[in-house]
Protein backbone atom coordinates (compact mmCIF):
# COMPACT_ATOMS: atom_id res chain seq x y z
CA UNK A 1 0.00 0.00 0.00
CA UNK A 2 2.58 2.52 1.16
CA UNK A 3 6.18 1.96 0.15
CA UNK A 4 8.76 4.64 0.82
CA UNK A 5 12.37 4.07 -0.12
CA UNK A 6 15.26 6.21 1.06
CA UNK A 7 13.23 9.36 1.21
CA UNK A 8 14.90 12.54 2.29
CA UNK A 9 13.33 15.90 2.92
CA UNK A 10 15.49 18.96 3.34
CA UNK A 11 14.01 22.36 4.10
CA UNK A 12 16.02 25.38 3.07
CA UNK A 13 14.00 28.23 4.53
CA UNK A 14 16.68 30.88 5.21
CA UNK A 15 19.46 29.31 3.15
CA UNK A 16 20.69 26.97 5.88
CA UNK A 17 19.34 23.52 5.13
CA UNK A 18 17.30 21.69 7.76
CA UNK A 19 17.15 17.94 7.32
CA UNK A 20 13.63 16.94 8.42
CA UNK A 21 13.84 13.42 7.05
CA UNK A 22 17.24 11.94 6.57
CA UNK A 23 16.85 8.53 4.97
CA UNK A 24 13.55 6.84 5.63
CA UNK A 25 12.36 3.57 4.17
CA UNK A 26 9.12 1.94 5.28
CA UNK A 27 6.39 -0.32 4.00
CA UNK A 28 2.88 -0.21 5.32
CA UNK A 29 0.41 -2.78 4.10
CA UNK A 30 -3.31 -2.51 3.53
CA UNK A 31 -5.32 -2.67 6.73
CA UNK A 32 -2.44 -1.87 9.04
CA UNK A 33 -2.86 0.40 12.05
CA UNK A 34 0.42 2.17 12.69
CA UNK A 35 1.39 4.57 15.47
CA UNK A 36 4.17 7.00 14.66
CA UNK A 37 6.05 8.20 17.71
CA UNK A 38 9.10 10.25 18.43
CA UNK A 39 10.23 13.47 20.03
CA UNK A 40 9.19 16.82 18.75
CA UNK A 41 11.06 17.83 15.61
CA UNK A 42 11.96 14.26 14.73
CA UNK A 43 10.22 14.45 11.36
CA UNK A 44 6.89 12.75 12.10
CA UNK A 45 4.75 15.44 10.54
CA UNK A 46 7.04 15.79 7.57
CA UNK A 47 6.74 12.04 7.01
CA UNK A 48 2.94 12.22 7.25
CA UNK A 49 2.84 15.11 4.77
CA UNK A 50 4.85 13.15 2.26
CA UNK A 51 2.85 9.94 2.51
CA UNK A 52 -0.29 12.08 2.50
CA UNK A 53 0.78 13.63 -0.82
CA UNK A 54 0.77 17.13 0.66
CA UNK A 55 4.50 17.37 0.16
CA UNK A 56 7.13 15.78 -2.04
CA UNK A 57 10.40 14.25 -0.89
CA UNK A 58 13.63 16.01 -1.84
CA UNK A 59 14.90 12.61 -2.96
CA UNK A 60 13.81 9.01 -2.72
CA UNK A 61 10.83 7.14 -4.05
CA UNK A 62 7.28 6.86 -2.83
CA UNK A 63 4.92 4.28 -4.21
CA UNK A 64 1.33 4.62 -3.13
CA UNK A 65 -1.06 1.86 -4.06
CA UNK A 66 1.47 0.66 -6.63
CA UNK A 67 1.89 4.08 -8.19
CA UNK A 68 5.07 6.14 -8.00
CA UNK A 69 3.80 9.52 -6.87
CA UNK A 70 7.13 11.18 -6.03
CA UNK A 71 7.22 12.98 -9.36
CA UNK A 72 3.56 14.03 -9.44
CA UNK A 73 2.53 17.65 -10.04
CA UNK A 74 0.65 19.62 -7.38
CA UNK A 75 -2.68 19.08 -9.08
CA UNK A 76 -2.04 15.40 -9.63
CA UNK A 77 -1.18 15.07 -5.94
CA UNK A 78 -4.41 16.90 -5.06
CA UNK A 79 -6.31 14.34 -7.07
CA UNK A 80 -4.56 11.48 -5.28
CA UNK A 81 -5.35 13.08 -1.90
CA UNK A 82 -8.98 13.46 -2.83
CA UNK A 83 -9.32 9.83 -3.86
CA UNK A 84 -7.02 7.84 -1.59
CA UNK A 85 -6.27 9.79 1.54
CA UNK A 86 -8.21 11.11 4.48
CA UNK A 87 -6.61 13.52 6.92
CA UNK A 88 -7.41 14.03 10.57
CA UNK A 89 -5.66 16.94 12.23
CA UNK A 90 -4.89 17.91 15.78
CA UNK A 91 -6.92 21.12 15.40
CA UNK A 92 -9.86 19.37 13.64
CA UNK A 93 -9.70 21.88 10.78
CA UNK A 94 -13.39 22.03 10.04
CA UNK A 95 -14.57 24.94 7.96
CA UNK A 96 -16.27 27.45 10.23
CA UNK A 97 -19.90 28.53 9.76
CA UNK A 98 -20.49 25.39 7.75
CA UNK A 99 -22.62 22.55 9.03
CA UNK A 100 -21.15 19.20 10.01
CA UNK A 101 -22.69 17.41 7.04
CA UNK A 102 -21.39 20.05 4.63
CA UNK A 103 -17.93 19.69 6.14
CA UNK A 104 -18.13 15.97 5.56
CA UNK A 105 -19.23 16.56 1.97
CA UNK A 106 -16.13 18.63 1.27
CA UNK A 107 -13.86 15.98 -0.30
CA UNK A 108 -16.64 14.92 -2.68
CA UNK A 109 -17.02 18.50 -3.87
CA UNK A 110 -13.80 18.15 -5.81
CA UNK A 111 -14.49 14.65 -7.02
CA UNK A 112 -17.47 15.12 -9.29
CA UNK A 113 -20.19 13.75 -7.02
CA UNK A 114 -23.80 14.81 -7.50
CA UNK A 115 -25.26 16.97 -4.72
CA UNK A 116 -27.70 14.23 -3.68
CA UNK A 117 -25.07 11.54 -3.60
CA UNK A 118 -22.78 13.83 -1.62
CA UNK A 119 -25.42 14.36 1.00
CA UNK A 120 -26.29 10.67 1.20
CA UNK A 121 -22.71 9.55 1.66
CA UNK A 122 -21.93 12.36 4.10
CA UNK A 123 -24.87 11.34 6.29
CA UNK A 124 -23.77 7.73 6.09
CA UNK A 125 -20.29 8.71 7.25
CA UNK A 126 -21.78 10.72 10.11
CA UNK A 127 -23.76 7.62 11.14
CA UNK A 128 -20.53 5.62 11.13
CA UNK A 129 -18.95 8.06 13.59
CA UNK A 130 -22.17 8.28 15.60
CA UNK A 131 -22.95 11.92 14.89
CA UNK A 132 -25.97 11.75 12.61
CA UNK A 133 -28.00 13.85 15.03
CA UNK A 134 -25.55 16.72 14.81
CA UNK A 135 -25.51 16.84 11.01
CA UNK A 136 -26.81 20.40 10.90
CA UNK A 137 -24.65 21.79 13.68
CA UNK A 138 -21.83 24.14 12.96
CA UNK A 139 -18.34 23.44 14.33
CA UNK A 140 -18.67 26.08 17.06
CA UNK A 141 -21.77 24.26 18.33
CA UNK A 142 -19.88 20.99 18.75
CA UNK A 143 -17.49 19.76 21.43
CA UNK A 144 -13.89 18.97 20.57
CA UNK A 145 -14.58 15.23 20.44
CA UNK A 146 -17.59 15.76 18.22
CA UNK A 147 -15.61 18.01 15.92
CA UNK A 148 -12.93 15.36 15.62
CA UNK A 149 -15.61 12.79 14.76
CA UNK A 150 -16.85 15.06 11.99
CA UNK A 151 -13.27 15.31 10.76
CA UNK A 152 -13.02 11.52 10.80
CA UNK A 153 -16.28 11.25 8.89
CA UNK A 154 -14.79 13.66 6.36
CA UNK A 155 -11.71 11.44 6.11
CA UNK A 156 -13.69 8.26 5.39
CA UNK A 157 -16.43 9.65 3.20
CA UNK A 158 -14.47 9.21 -0.02
CA UNK A 159 -13.81 5.57 0.76
CA UNK A 160 -10.21 6.63 1.13
CA UNK A 161 -7.91 3.65 1.74
CA UNK A 162 -5.61 5.50 4.06
CA UNK A 163 -6.34 7.67 7.07
CA UNK A 164 -3.57 9.88 8.31
CA UNK A 165 -3.98 11.43 11.74
CA UNK A 166 -1.35 13.83 13.06
CA UNK A 167 -1.81 13.98 16.84
CA UNK A 168 -5.60 13.63 16.56
CA UNK A 169 -6.03 13.57 20.31
CA UNK A 170 -3.65 16.39 21.11
CA UNK A 171 -6.50 18.78 21.86
CA UNK A 172 -8.77 16.31 23.62
CA UNK A 173 -9.14 15.08 27.19
CA UNK A 174 -8.26 11.50 28.09
CA UNK A 175 -11.77 10.08 27.91
CA UNK A 176 -12.56 11.68 24.58
CA UNK A 177 -9.14 10.63 23.30
CA UNK A 178 -9.98 7.03 24.11
CA UNK A 179 -13.32 7.30 22.31
CA UNK A 180 -11.61 8.68 19.23
CA UNK A 181 -8.99 5.95 19.30
CA UNK A 182 -11.70 3.32 19.68
CA UNK A 183 -13.35 4.78 16.62
CA UNK A 184 -10.08 4.40 14.72
CA UNK A 185 -9.79 0.80 15.91
CA UNK A 186 -13.31 0.12 14.73
CA UNK A 187 -12.67 1.70 11.33
CA UNK A 188 -9.51 -0.32 11.03
CA UNK A 189 -11.14 -3.57 12.02
CA UNK A 190 -14.57 -3.23 10.43
CA UNK A 191 -13.90 -1.08 7.39
CA UNK A 192 -10.36 -2.30 6.78
CA UNK A 193 -8.92 1.21 6.68
CA UNK A 194 -5.17 1.62 6.74
CA UNK A 195 -4.57 4.03 9.61
CA UNK A 196 -1.46 5.91 10.61
CA UNK A 197 -1.59 7.96 13.79
CA UNK A 198 1.11 10.29 15.03
CA UNK A 199 1.20 10.62 18.79
CA UNK A 200 3.42 11.45 21.76
CA UNK A 201 1.51 9.32 24.17
CA UNK A 202 2.21 5.63 24.66
CA UNK A 203 -1.41 5.13 25.76
CA UNK A 204 -2.64 6.33 22.43
CA UNK A 205 0.02 4.38 20.56
CA UNK A 206 -1.08 1.23 22.33
CA UNK A 207 -4.24 1.12 20.23
CA UNK A 208 -2.11 0.49 17.15
CA UNK A 209 -0.80 -2.90 16.05
CA UNK A 210 2.52 -1.47 14.98
CA UNK A 211 4.68 1.36 16.28
CA UNK A 212 7.27 3.24 14.28
CA UNK A 213 9.69 5.50 16.13
CA UNK A 214 11.38 8.53 14.63
CA UNK A 215 14.48 10.34 15.83
CA UNK A 216 16.31 13.11 14.00
CA UNK A 217 14.72 12.26 10.71
CA UNK A 218 15.37 8.56 10.86
CA UNK A 219 13.32 5.56 11.84
CA UNK A 220 14.93 4.04 14.91
CA UNK A 221 12.44 1.38 15.82
CA UNK A 222 9.65 -0.50 14.06
CA UNK A 223 7.80 -3.04 16.18
CA UNK A 224 4.59 -5.02 15.81
CA UNK A 225 2.46 -5.86 18.79
CA UNK A 226 1.31 -9.22 17.58
Amino acid sequence: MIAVENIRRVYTPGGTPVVALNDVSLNIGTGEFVAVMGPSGSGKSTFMHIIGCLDRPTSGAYRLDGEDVSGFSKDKLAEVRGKKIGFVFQGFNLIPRTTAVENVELPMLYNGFEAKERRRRALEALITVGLEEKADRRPNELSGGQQQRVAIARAIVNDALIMLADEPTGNLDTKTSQEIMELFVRLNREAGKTIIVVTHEPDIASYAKRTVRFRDGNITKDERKW
Partner: protein
Amino acid sequence: MVNLPAIVKISLRALLVNRMRSALTMLGMIIGVAAVITMMAVGTGAGDRIAAQMASMGSNLLMVFSGAATTGGSRMGAGTMPTLTMRDTEAIRKECPAVEDAAPIVNGTLQVVYGNQNWSTIVIGTTPNMLEIREWPVSEGRPFQWEDVRSATKVCLLGQTLVDNLFLGADPLGQTVRIKNVPFTVIGILKKKGQNPTGQDQDDTIYVPITTGQKRLFGAQLFDMVRIIFVKAKSFDDLDSAETQITELLRQRHHIGPRQDDDFNVRNLTQIMQSAQSAVNTVTTLLSAIASVSLLVGGIGIMNIMLVSVTERTKEIGVRMAVGAKSVDIRFQFLIEALLLSLIGGALGIVLGIAGAQVFASVVGAPVIITLSSILLAFGFSAAVGVFFGYYPAYKASQLDPIEALRYE
Protein backbone atom coordinates in the same frame (compact mmCIF):
# COMPACT_ATOMS: atom_id res chain seq x y z
CA MET B 1 -14.30 19.37 -13.82
CA VAL B 2 -15.00 22.27 -11.50
CA ASN B 3 -18.21 21.87 -9.54
CA LEU B 4 -19.72 25.25 -10.35
CA PRO B 5 -23.04 25.14 -8.44
CA ALA B 6 -21.30 24.03 -5.26
CA ILE B 7 -18.63 26.69 -5.64
CA VAL B 8 -21.21 29.40 -6.24
CA LYS B 9 -22.95 28.30 -3.07
CA ILE B 10 -19.70 28.46 -1.10
CA SER B 11 -18.97 31.93 -2.47
CA LEU B 12 -22.46 33.20 -1.73
CA ARG B 13 -22.20 31.95 1.83
CA ALA B 14 -18.83 33.62 2.28
CA LEU B 15 -20.34 36.90 1.08
CA LEU B 16 -23.33 36.52 3.40
CA VAL B 17 -21.12 35.87 6.40
CA ASN B 18 -19.56 39.29 5.94
CA ARG B 19 -22.73 41.09 4.96
CA MET B 20 -21.63 44.57 5.84
CA ARG B 21 -18.26 44.19 4.20
CA SER B 22 -19.78 42.71 1.05
CA ALA B 23 -22.35 45.49 0.88
CA LEU B 24 -19.73 48.20 1.26
CA THR B 25 -17.56 46.57 -1.36
CA MET B 26 -20.48 46.37 -3.75
CA LEU B 27 -21.27 50.00 -3.13
CA GLY B 28 -18.31 51.00 -5.27
CA MET B 29 -19.70 48.96 -8.15
CA ILE B 30 -23.25 50.12 -7.52
CA ILE B 31 -22.28 53.78 -7.68
CA GLY B 32 -20.06 53.31 -10.71
CA VAL B 33 -22.59 51.35 -12.72
CA ALA B 34 -25.46 53.60 -11.68
CA ALA B 35 -23.49 56.66 -12.75
CA VAL B 36 -22.66 55.14 -16.13
CA ILE B 37 -26.26 54.06 -16.72
CA THR B 38 -27.65 57.46 -15.75
CA MET B 39 -25.13 59.36 -17.86
CA MET B 40 -25.80 57.20 -20.85
CA ALA B 41 -29.57 57.47 -20.40
CA VAL B 42 -29.41 61.25 -20.16
CA GLY B 43 -27.01 61.51 -23.08
CA THR B 44 -29.00 59.15 -25.28
CA GLY B 45 -32.18 61.00 -24.36
CA ALA B 46 -30.66 64.35 -25.30
CA GLY B 47 -29.24 62.99 -28.53
CA ASP B 48 -32.51 61.39 -29.41
CA ARG B 49 -34.40 64.57 -28.74
CA ILE B 50 -32.09 66.50 -31.04
CA ALA B 51 -32.55 63.87 -33.71
CA ALA B 52 -36.33 64.04 -33.33
CA GLN B 53 -36.30 67.82 -33.50
CA MET B 54 -34.05 67.65 -36.49
CA ALA B 55 -36.57 65.45 -38.18
CA SER B 56 -39.40 67.76 -37.12
CA MET B 57 -37.72 70.70 -38.79
CA GLY B 58 -37.62 68.93 -42.11
CA SER B 59 -34.52 67.51 -43.68
CA ASN B 60 -31.75 69.26 -45.63
CA LEU B 61 -32.99 72.70 -44.64
CA LEU B 62 -31.36 76.09 -44.97
CA MET B 63 -32.88 79.26 -43.61
CA VAL B 64 -32.11 82.60 -45.19
CA PHE B 65 -32.79 85.48 -42.80
CA SER B 66 -33.31 89.10 -43.67
CA GLY B 67 -30.65 91.40 -42.26
CA ALA B 68 -26.96 90.99 -41.45
CA ALA B 69 -25.71 88.04 -39.49
CA THR B 70 -25.73 88.32 -35.73
CA THR B 71 -23.94 86.00 -33.44
CA GLY B 72 -26.45 83.58 -32.01
CA GLY B 73 -30.04 84.50 -31.30
CA SER B 74 -32.95 84.31 -33.65
CA ARG B 75 -33.90 87.18 -35.86
CA MET B 76 -37.50 86.12 -36.03
CA GLY B 77 -39.77 89.02 -35.32
CA ALA B 78 -36.92 91.52 -35.12
CA GLY B 79 -38.00 95.02 -35.93
CA THR B 80 -35.57 95.61 -38.76
CA MET B 81 -36.73 96.19 -42.29
CA PRO B 82 -36.74 92.96 -44.25
CA THR B 83 -34.26 92.84 -47.11
CA LEU B 84 -35.51 89.70 -48.82
CA THR B 85 -38.32 89.63 -51.32
CA MET B 86 -40.76 87.23 -52.93
CA ARG B 87 -38.71 87.58 -56.11
CA ASP B 88 -35.56 86.54 -54.20
CA THR B 89 -37.42 83.40 -53.23
CA GLU B 90 -38.38 82.68 -56.81
CA ALA B 91 -34.80 83.33 -57.93
CA ILE B 92 -33.43 80.89 -55.36
CA ARG B 93 -35.94 78.27 -56.47
CA LYS B 94 -35.17 78.66 -60.11
CA GLU B 95 -31.49 79.60 -60.31
CA CYS B 96 -29.71 77.58 -57.66
CA PRO B 97 -29.11 74.06 -58.99
CA ALA B 98 -28.57 72.59 -55.52
CA VAL B 99 -31.93 73.88 -54.32
CA GLU B 100 -35.02 71.75 -54.57
CA ASP B 101 -37.55 74.21 -53.26
CA ALA B 102 -37.82 77.49 -51.37
CA ALA B 103 -40.66 79.15 -49.52
CA PRO B 104 -40.89 82.65 -48.02
CA ILE B 105 -42.15 83.65 -44.62
CA VAL B 106 -43.50 86.80 -43.05
CA ASN B 107 -44.30 86.49 -39.40
CA GLY B 108 -45.22 88.30 -36.25
CA THR B 109 -46.76 87.69 -32.87
CA LEU B 110 -50.43 88.65 -32.89
CA GLN B 111 -53.64 88.03 -30.95
CA VAL B 112 -56.00 85.46 -32.44
CA VAL B 113 -59.61 85.72 -31.31
CA TYR B 114 -62.32 83.10 -31.47
CA GLY B 115 -65.60 83.87 -29.71
CA ASN B 116 -64.59 85.14 -26.29
CA GLN B 117 -61.27 83.26 -26.32
CA ASN B 118 -58.07 84.88 -27.42
CA TRP B 119 -54.54 83.62 -27.76
CA SER B 120 -51.29 85.33 -28.64
CA THR B 121 -49.41 83.31 -31.22
CA ILE B 122 -46.92 83.43 -34.04
CA VAL B 123 -48.74 84.21 -37.27
CA ILE B 124 -46.89 82.93 -40.29
CA GLY B 125 -47.61 84.03 -43.81
CA THR B 126 -46.20 81.64 -46.38
CA THR B 127 -46.78 79.72 -49.60
CA PRO B 128 -48.26 76.21 -49.93
CA ASN B 129 -44.93 74.51 -50.68
CA MET B 130 -43.78 75.47 -47.18
CA LEU B 131 -45.66 72.51 -45.76
CA GLU B 132 -43.75 70.17 -48.04
CA ILE B 133 -40.39 71.76 -47.26
CA ARG B 134 -41.02 71.42 -43.56
CA GLU B 135 -42.59 68.00 -44.02
CA TRP B 136 -45.60 69.25 -42.12
CA PRO B 137 -48.89 67.88 -43.39
CA VAL B 138 -52.35 68.97 -42.28
CA SER B 139 -54.08 66.41 -40.11
CA GLU B 140 -57.59 67.63 -40.83
CA GLY B 141 -59.12 69.79 -43.54
CA ARG B 142 -56.93 70.91 -46.43
CA PRO B 143 -53.85 73.07 -46.92
CA PHE B 144 -54.19 76.36 -48.76
CA GLN B 145 -53.33 76.51 -52.46
CA TRP B 146 -51.28 78.76 -54.73
CA GLU B 147 -54.63 80.23 -55.78
CA ASP B 148 -55.15 81.37 -52.18
CA VAL B 149 -51.79 83.11 -52.33
CA ARG B 150 -52.53 84.80 -55.65
CA SER B 151 -55.87 86.14 -54.53
CA ALA B 152 -54.87 86.71 -50.89
CA THR B 153 -57.80 84.80 -49.48
CA LYS B 154 -58.53 85.03 -45.78
CA VAL B 155 -58.02 81.37 -44.86
CA CYS B 156 -55.80 79.85 -42.22
CA LEU B 157 -54.30 76.62 -40.88
CA LEU B 158 -54.22 76.20 -37.12
CA GLY B 159 -51.45 74.66 -35.06
CA GLN B 160 -52.58 72.10 -32.51
CA THR B 161 -51.84 74.37 -29.52
CA LEU B 162 -54.16 76.97 -30.96
CA VAL B 163 -56.88 74.40 -31.52
CA ASP B 164 -56.55 73.33 -27.90
CA ASN B 165 -56.54 76.82 -26.44
CA LEU B 166 -59.10 78.60 -28.60
CA PHE B 167 -61.61 75.91 -29.42
CA LEU B 168 -61.57 73.92 -26.20
CA GLY B 169 -62.67 70.73 -27.90
CA ALA B 170 -64.99 72.22 -30.52
CA ASP B 171 -64.38 71.48 -34.19
CA PRO B 172 -62.49 74.44 -35.64
CA LEU B 173 -62.94 73.52 -39.32
CA GLY B 174 -65.05 76.12 -41.13
CA GLN B 175 -65.07 78.42 -38.12
CA THR B 176 -63.86 81.99 -38.31
CA VAL B 177 -61.07 83.39 -36.19
CA ARG B 178 -60.06 87.04 -36.09
CA ILE B 179 -56.55 88.39 -36.29
CA LYS B 180 -56.23 92.17 -36.05
CA ASN B 181 -59.98 92.14 -36.60
CA VAL B 182 -59.59 90.45 -39.99
CA PRO B 183 -61.76 87.31 -40.20
CA PHE B 184 -59.99 84.13 -41.32
CA THR B 185 -61.76 80.89 -42.15
CA VAL B 186 -60.12 77.81 -40.66
CA ILE B 187 -59.60 75.36 -43.52
CA GLY B 188 -57.12 72.96 -41.95
CA ILE B 189 -55.30 71.86 -38.85
CA LEU B 190 -51.56 71.27 -38.85
CA LYS B 191 -50.31 67.95 -37.60
CA LYS B 192 -48.86 68.11 -34.10
CA LYS B 193 -45.10 68.67 -34.28
CA GLY B 194 -43.75 69.38 -30.80
CA GLN B 195 -40.82 71.54 -29.81
CA ASN B 196 -38.23 72.88 -32.17
CA PRO B 197 -34.51 72.70 -31.33
CA THR B 198 -34.61 75.94 -29.39
CA GLY B 199 -37.42 74.62 -27.23
CA GLN B 200 -40.24 76.57 -28.86
CA ASP B 201 -43.64 74.99 -29.23
CA GLN B 202 -43.95 74.69 -32.99
CA ASP B 203 -47.66 73.97 -32.73
CA ASP B 204 -48.31 77.41 -31.22
CA THR B 205 -48.76 78.95 -34.65
CA ILE B 206 -51.22 79.84 -37.37
CA TYR B 207 -50.47 79.70 -41.10
CA VAL B 208 -52.02 82.14 -43.59
CA PRO B 209 -51.29 82.78 -47.28
CA ILE B 210 -48.25 85.06 -47.43
CA THR B 211 -50.00 87.71 -49.51
CA THR B 212 -52.85 87.93 -47.04
CA GLY B 213 -50.34 88.31 -44.23
CA GLN B 214 -48.41 91.00 -46.04
CA LYS B 215 -51.48 93.03 -46.95
CA ARG B 216 -53.74 92.54 -43.97
CA LEU B 217 -51.60 91.75 -40.97
CA PHE B 218 -48.07 93.05 -41.18
CA GLY B 219 -48.64 96.43 -42.82
CA ALA B 220 -47.82 97.99 -46.13
CA GLN B 221 -44.13 98.11 -45.40
CA LEU B 222 -44.02 94.38 -45.76
CA PHE B 223 -45.59 94.33 -49.16
CA ASP B 224 -43.54 91.89 -51.24
CA MET B 225 -40.97 91.73 -48.48
CA VAL B 226 -40.23 88.48 -46.62
CA ARG B 227 -38.36 87.91 -43.38
CA ILE B 228 -37.13 84.36 -43.88
CA ILE B 229 -36.77 82.05 -46.84
CA PHE B 230 -36.87 78.35 -46.07
CA VAL B 231 -34.77 76.41 -48.56
CA LYS B 232 -34.68 72.69 -49.08
CA ALA B 233 -31.50 71.43 -50.70
CA LYS B 234 -31.67 68.54 -53.14
CA SER B 235 -29.78 66.30 -50.73
CA PHE B 236 -27.68 66.43 -47.62
CA ASP B 237 -24.53 66.66 -49.72
CA ASP B 238 -25.98 69.62 -51.61
CA LEU B 239 -26.36 71.74 -48.47
CA ASP B 240 -22.96 73.39 -48.77
CA SER B 241 -23.23 74.17 -52.46
CA ALA B 242 -26.78 75.40 -51.95
CA GLU B 243 -25.51 77.80 -49.31
CA THR B 244 -22.79 79.10 -51.62
CA GLN B 245 -25.15 79.43 -54.58
CA ILE B 246 -27.74 81.30 -52.51
CA THR B 247 -25.14 83.66 -51.08
CA GLU B 248 -23.74 84.45 -54.53
CA LEU B 249 -27.17 84.87 -56.03
CA LEU B 250 -28.44 87.17 -53.30
CA ARG B 251 -25.27 89.30 -53.21
CA GLN B 252 -25.66 89.78 -56.91
CA ARG B 253 -29.38 90.52 -56.71
CA HIS B 254 -28.90 92.92 -53.79
CA HIS B 255 -25.95 94.62 -55.52
CA ILE B 256 -23.58 94.06 -52.64
CA GLY B 257 -20.01 95.10 -53.40
CA PRO B 258 -17.03 92.85 -52.75
CA ARG B 259 -16.16 94.64 -49.49
CA GLN B 260 -19.68 95.01 -48.22
CA ASP B 261 -21.33 92.71 -45.72
CA ASP B 262 -24.28 90.56 -46.68
CA ASP B 263 -27.67 92.06 -45.87
CA PHE B 264 -28.99 88.56 -45.23
CA ASN B 265 -27.66 85.49 -43.53
CA VAL B 266 -27.90 81.84 -44.35
CA ARG B 267 -28.12 79.21 -41.67
CA ASN B 268 -27.63 75.55 -42.22
CA LEU B 269 -30.05 73.96 -39.77
CA THR B 270 -28.94 70.43 -40.41
CA GLN B 271 -25.35 71.34 -39.66
CA ILE B 272 -26.32 73.17 -36.50
CA MET B 273 -28.30 70.15 -35.38
CA GLN B 274 -25.51 67.79 -36.19
CA SER B 275 -22.93 69.76 -34.32
CA ALA B 276 -25.32 69.93 -31.37
CA GLN B 277 -25.69 66.20 -31.57
CA SER B 278 -22.01 65.52 -31.72
CA ALA B 279 -21.51 67.89 -28.80
CA VAL B 280 -24.05 65.89 -26.82
CA ASN B 281 -22.27 62.69 -27.80
CA THR B 282 -18.94 64.09 -26.69
CA VAL B 283 -20.32 65.19 -23.36
CA THR B 284 -22.04 61.83 -22.86
CA THR B 285 -18.87 59.95 -23.63
CA LEU B 286 -16.88 62.20 -21.34
CA LEU B 287 -19.31 61.87 -18.44
CA SER B 288 -19.55 58.12 -18.91
CA ALA B 289 -15.78 57.92 -18.91
CA ILE B 290 -15.64 59.89 -15.69
CA ALA B 291 -18.35 57.67 -14.24
CA SER B 292 -16.45 54.56 -15.22
CA VAL B 293 -13.52 55.74 -13.14
CA SER B 294 -15.69 54.93 -10.14
CA LEU B 295 -16.10 51.44 -11.61
CA LEU B 296 -12.35 51.21 -11.51
CA VAL B 297 -12.36 52.34 -7.90
CA GLY B 298 -15.06 49.76 -7.21
CA GLY B 299 -12.87 47.12 -8.81
CA ILE B 300 -9.92 48.08 -6.65
CA GLY B 301 -12.21 47.80 -3.62
CA ILE B 302 -13.14 44.29 -4.69
CA MET B 303 -9.51 43.35 -5.12
CA ASN B 304 -8.69 44.74 -1.70
CA ILE B 305 -11.47 42.83 0.02
CA MET B 306 -10.63 39.65 -1.84
CA LEU B 307 -7.02 39.86 -0.72
CA VAL B 308 -8.20 40.29 2.86
CA SER B 309 -10.59 37.40 2.43
CA VAL B 310 -7.91 35.10 1.03
CA THR B 311 -5.63 35.89 3.96
CA GLU B 312 -8.39 35.38 6.51
CA ARG B 313 -9.33 32.08 5.00
CA THR B 314 -5.85 30.72 4.48
CA LYS B 315 -6.59 27.80 6.78
CA GLU B 316 -9.83 27.02 4.97
CA ILE B 317 -7.90 26.99 1.70
CA GLY B 318 -5.41 24.57 3.26
CA VAL B 319 -8.22 22.26 4.37
CA ARG B 320 -9.81 22.32 0.94
CA MET B 321 -6.50 21.51 -0.67
CA ALA B 322 -5.87 18.70 1.81
CA VAL B 323 -9.16 17.03 0.89
CA GLY B 324 -8.43 17.21 -2.82
CA ALA B 325 -9.15 20.72 -4.13
CA LYS B 326 -6.93 21.48 -7.10
CA SER B 327 -5.55 24.96 -7.66
CA VAL B 328 -8.22 25.56 -10.31
CA ASP B 329 -10.93 24.77 -7.74
CA ILE B 330 -9.53 27.32 -5.32
CA ARG B 331 -9.00 29.88 -8.07
CA PHE B 332 -12.57 29.46 -9.21
CA GLN B 333 -13.94 29.79 -5.72
CA PHE B 334 -12.36 33.19 -5.16
CA LEU B 335 -12.86 34.35 -8.70
CA ILE B 336 -16.55 33.57 -8.43
CA GLU B 337 -16.72 35.37 -5.12
CA ALA B 338 -15.24 38.47 -6.75
CA LEU B 339 -17.52 38.04 -9.74
CA LEU B 340 -20.58 37.78 -7.51
CA LEU B 341 -19.56 40.99 -5.74
CA SER B 342 -19.16 42.83 -9.01
CA LEU B 343 -22.21 41.34 -10.74
CA ILE B 344 -24.60 41.81 -7.83
CA GLY B 345 -23.16 45.30 -7.41
CA GLY B 346 -23.57 45.84 -11.13
CA ALA B 347 -27.17 44.61 -11.15
CA LEU B 348 -28.08 46.85 -8.21
CA GLY B 349 -26.23 49.67 -9.94
CA ILE B 350 -28.32 49.16 -13.06
CA VAL B 351 -31.50 49.37 -11.01
CA LEU B 352 -30.23 52.47 -9.21
CA GLY B 353 -29.05 53.97 -12.50
CA ILE B 354 -32.46 53.48 -14.10
CA ALA B 355 -34.08 55.04 -11.05
CA GLY B 356 -31.55 57.89 -11.17
CA ALA B 357 -32.32 58.50 -14.82
CA GLN B 358 -36.06 58.62 -14.08
CA VAL B 359 -35.47 61.07 -11.25
CA PHE B 360 -33.32 63.18 -13.56
CA ALA B 361 -36.06 63.06 -16.17
CA SER B 362 -38.75 64.21 -13.78
CA VAL B 363 -36.65 66.84 -11.99
CA VAL B 364 -34.96 68.38 -15.03
CA GLY B 365 -37.77 67.53 -17.40
CA ALA B 366 -35.40 66.28 -20.05
CA PRO B 367 -36.10 62.99 -21.77
CA VAL B 368 -33.90 60.01 -20.87
CA ILE B 369 -33.55 56.83 -22.81
CA ILE B 370 -32.27 53.63 -21.23
CA THR B 371 -31.09 51.34 -23.96
CA LEU B 372 -30.65 47.61 -23.64
CA SER B 373 -27.15 48.03 -24.97
CA SER B 374 -26.21 50.38 -22.13
CA ILE B 375 -27.50 47.82 -19.62
CA LEU B 376 -25.64 44.99 -21.28
CA LEU B 377 -22.55 47.16 -21.47
CA ALA B 378 -22.75 47.99 -17.77
CA PHE B 379 -23.28 44.34 -16.88
CA GLY B 380 -20.44 43.23 -19.11
CA PHE B 381 -18.24 45.90 -17.63
CA SER B 382 -19.07 44.70 -14.11
CA ALA B 383 -18.18 41.15 -15.06
CA ALA B 384 -14.92 42.34 -16.58
CA VAL B 385 -14.10 44.33 -13.44
CA GLY B 386 -14.83 41.27 -11.28
CA VAL B 387 -12.66 38.98 -13.34
CA PHE B 388 -9.88 41.52 -13.74
CA PHE B 389 -9.63 42.56 -10.11
CA GLY B 390 -10.59 39.16 -8.71
CA TYR B 391 -8.03 37.23 -10.65
CA TYR B 392 -4.94 38.19 -8.70
CA PRO B 393 -6.34 37.36 -5.24
CA ALA B 394 -7.79 34.12 -6.60
CA TYR B 395 -4.50 33.23 -8.20
CA LYS B 396 -2.70 34.00 -4.97
CA ALA B 397 -5.06 31.72 -3.06
CA SER B 398 -4.61 28.90 -5.54
CA GLN B 399 -0.83 29.05 -5.27
CA LEU B 400 -0.76 28.60 -1.50
CA ASP B 401 1.17 25.68 -0.18
CA PRO B 402 -1.30 23.34 1.55
CA ILE B 403 0.99 22.63 4.50
CA GLU B 404 1.74 26.30 5.11
CA ALA B 405 -1.93 27.12 4.73
CA LEU B 406 -2.97 24.44 7.21
CA ARG B 407 -0.47 25.75 9.73
CA TYR B 408 -1.83 29.33 9.43
CA GLU B 409 -3.67 30.58 12.51
